[in-house]
């Protein structure tokens, strides 16, 4: 039982890292996705390069670059801040592609219809295209969030006391190898359950509202 308690101590940190990173990513992904679809070619290339670099380097390497590399001289960050910044940037890269997928899925005729009704680009985006793209992008985004919950375990390597870190501390101090890790695995699986449920119900609700 004490093993479970030790592992559960990490839950707030895991959730905090994941939610903060997701929030940063969700916001930064908007300009990134917009740039990726821009009519200005160099802007498009820059966004594409940024997304490729963010997604192409493994998360743990990003965290090390930010925590050990930049933390050395350029900008001193605590483990939690470095973790949120690193995972937030990576999330921005992934979410930008998910948003773009949503925008691309909206039929071109919708833009034409909006402009025929005299709507400007901004109006068309927020009132016509955006809501439809959101519905398409939502399942992808929640799947990503569930993945992020699990990937956030890498923050244990830079000293955030999340579920993973608590489990390995407990395993080391009590020398009872298997149990803490199995409990950690169980906690991750249990935590991703409600997220999966939320994603399914939200998707079903949104679908029902726009279904014809």
């Amino acid at each position: 039982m004490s093993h479970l308690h030790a592992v559960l101590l990490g839950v707030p940190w895991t959730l905090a890292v994941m939610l903060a990173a997701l929030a940063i990513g969700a916001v930064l992904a908007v300009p990134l996705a917009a740039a990726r679809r821009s009519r200005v070619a160099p802007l498009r290339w820059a966004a594409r390069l940024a997304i490729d670099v963010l997604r192409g380097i493994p998360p743990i390497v990003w965290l090390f670059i930010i925590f050990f590399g930049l933390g050395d001289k350029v900008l001193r960050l605590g483990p939690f801040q470095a973790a949120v910044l690193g995972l937030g940037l990576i999330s921005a890269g992934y979410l930008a592609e998910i948003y773009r997928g949503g925008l691309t899925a909206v039929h071109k005729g919708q833009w034409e219809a909006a402009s025929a009704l005299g709507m400007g680009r901004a109006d068309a985006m927020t009132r016509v295209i955006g809501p439809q793209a959101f519905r398409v992008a939502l399942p992808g985004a929640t799947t990503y969030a569930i993945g992020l919950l699990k990937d956030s375990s890498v923050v244990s390597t830079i000293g955030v006391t999340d579920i993973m870190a608590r489990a390995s501390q407990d395993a080391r101090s009590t020398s009872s190898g298997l149990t803490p890790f199995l409990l950690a695995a169980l906690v991750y699986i249990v935590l991703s359950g409600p997220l999966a449920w939320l994603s399914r119900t939200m998707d079903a609700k949104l679908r029902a509202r726009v279904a014809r």
Partner: protein
Amino acid sequence: MNDSLLSSWVEWTPALLDGLWTSLQLTGGSLAIGIPGGLLLALLMSGRSRVVKAVAIVLVEIGRGMPALVVLQLVYFGLPSAGLTFGPFLAATAALALTTAAYTSEILRAGLQAVPAGEVEAAAALGMSHRDSLRYVVIPQGVRVAIPALLGFSIQIFQATSLTFTIAVPELLGQAYSIGAATFRYLDVLVLAGLVYLAVVLPAGSITRLLERRMGRHL
């Protein structure tokens, strides 16, 4: 960007390439064990026995629900207390192979389901046994459909090999970190390591997309 950085990069490159080779070996080993495991799980999941199906689904859900880092630490630090001790490289291969099996089973199941039911019926009509129709009709086509997605997953597993740094496998990140610890130039060497990862991941991604388009033409 100055001369000293470039000359350091040149000096560090052989060590990092050694690490890259280890990372690639890990990737290859995990895929070589994990994908056949995934195929087995996929066949069990699409099998006829309800019990077998349920067991396979539970295994896959657990395997996909566990973070790869947890699996890795469990195998390396946890299993010795149950009497199973692996070296770092073996533990890393075993752990990543388990994750690979769980994830690729879903990819392969989708591939197997893409084979038209009419082909299975045709095989039965020709008097082929269930086993033969799997062996000669369903699996060859289903696996082919799954190839682009499997390649995409392989790229992810290559990235995931960086996690094995935590159990002291001297892969790419491990090499970069030891150079950092020796020279106190973490930023310079970690950025170089990041570039090496990109040099593998980005071309591999382009090849995957190209293949996807090529194969999409004929299916």
